[in-house]
């Protein structure tokens, strides 16, 4: 789950970047992209550390071993909630501002991207809150060890990060990032903002419905809204695809091949130059035969060849 929660962020970030790339030629989209990138980094780290604390607490990596942790780990619970809210784009958390700007940029310049981004935002919210409810609200399993709050070394960073997740949205980022040193005002378009909050809330509610308590509601939904459930179920496929992309493609193929390329081709070339030099030196060492007569022949032929070359190169 750990790797899973980490990896699944990447796809989203890629998308954010993609949006920002298409975003606009006036700097807004890109600025927003970066802004989001960094706010994202923040709550992503928060989520991640939170997950670490949880794993630390329950000594397991698997979600089925968790549930109802809010009682045991209040700090982690709160911070995780903040992170989840932030990532879902609920004001006043950081993610709202950045995501809103992305979407605004996308809306202005590239409508299809906006739609995709919009939907993805909702999916993210759903996904994150699925995690959140599953871990902190779901029925308690039988804990072998009583879960306990993480040590201070973990909670303090959590708190700091949470704090920043809340407030970094208010950093006057525009001035900071602006291309030409002139502060450039991002105006929050409340229509869009409302839309994006809306999708976030929908996602959260959906997750709440399905995962707050074990089975009953979600089972009912499965029967009642078979298609809708299937759709959400498919979203797990998307997660799987994320997982596949990150774990298999990036890790196994791309990254490995880069690493291999670096060690063998680039480094090999550099070493090859060195070894080539040494190889030449072994090949020519026979010239130094130890015989003074050979030396004399080299000497004389050297003189004669130089004379010949010089004669040919001048024309009288």
């Amino acid at each position, binding site marked *: 789950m750990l790797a899973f929660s980490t990896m699944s962020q990447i796809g989203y970030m890629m998308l954010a970047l993609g949006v920002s790339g298409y975003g606009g030629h006036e700097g807004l989209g890109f600025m927003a992209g970066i802004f989001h990138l960094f706010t994202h980094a923040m709550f992503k780290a928060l989520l991640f550390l939170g997950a670490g604390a949880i794993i630390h607490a329950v000594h397991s990596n698997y979600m089925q071993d968790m549930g109802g942790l809010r009682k045991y780990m209040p700090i982690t619970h709160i911070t995780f909630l903040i992170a989840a809210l932030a990532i879902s784009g609920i004001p006043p958390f950081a993610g709202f501002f950045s995501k809103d700007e992305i979407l605004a940029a996308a809306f202005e310049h590239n409508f299809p991207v906006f739609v995709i981004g919009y939907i993805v935002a909702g999916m993210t919210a759903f996904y994150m809150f699925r995690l959140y409810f599953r871990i902190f609200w779901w029925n308690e399993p039988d804990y072998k060890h009583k879960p306990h709050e993480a040590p201070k070394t973990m909670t303090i960073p959590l708190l700091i990060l949470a704090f920043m997740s809340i407030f970094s949205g208010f950093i006057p980022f525009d001035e900071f990032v602006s291309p030409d040193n002139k502060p450039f005002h991002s105006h929050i378009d409340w229509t869009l903002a409302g839309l994006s909050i809306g999708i976030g809330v929908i996602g959260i509610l959906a997750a709440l419905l399905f995962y707050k308590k074990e089975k009953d509601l979600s089972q009912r939904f499965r029967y009642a809204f078979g298609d809708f459930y299937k759709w959400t179920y498919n979203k797990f496929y998307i997660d799987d695809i994320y997982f596949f992309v990150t774990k298999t493609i990036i890790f196994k193929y791309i990254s490995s091949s880069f690493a291999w390329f670096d060690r063998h081709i680039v480094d090999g070339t550099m070493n090859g130059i060195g070894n080539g030099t040494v190889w030449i030196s072994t090949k020519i060492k026979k010239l130094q035969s130890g015989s003074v*007569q050979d030396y004399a*022949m080299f000497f*004389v*032929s050297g003189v*004669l060849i130089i*004379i*010949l070359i010089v004669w040919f190169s001048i024309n009288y």
Partner: protein
Amino acid sequence: MIVFAAMTVSNKNIMRSIIYLLFVLIGMAAIYFMIEFYFLGAVQLTVYAGGIIVLYVNSVMLVEKINNPLPSVALWRRLLAGFLSAFGIILTLFAVWSYDFAVVAENQAKEISIEDVGLTLLSYGDHGYILPFEVISVLLLAAMVGAIVIAKTNKHEQITNK
């Protein structure tokens, strides 16, 4: 003379080689006499024929049995060296023959006596050669010391064949 020179470097008997070398040197001296550098010819005869050749003979007698033939040389080496020399001869002769030497007519040349040579050697003015003369005296001294250094062995020590 060329024949003698060739014999010098090709004869299998080292003693004979020395004799052929002597003939070459005498030939040289003859040329010097023919162009009226008598003093030079005399030096050539005394130093070379009288000194160096004797030195050679002595050392050969010291180290080698006279009748031992010299070891034969690999053909490739002879060919290579021969080719090299031929190449060099062609090149040098081309240089020499292509150059237009401003030969001074015979009647303008003045007689060079031994006195002239001596005076030139010992004058310290323009075109005087006293300094090299002094230098060469040091050189001969140094060569002598060097030869002594190398020839002098301590009788108490065994000669190790390392």
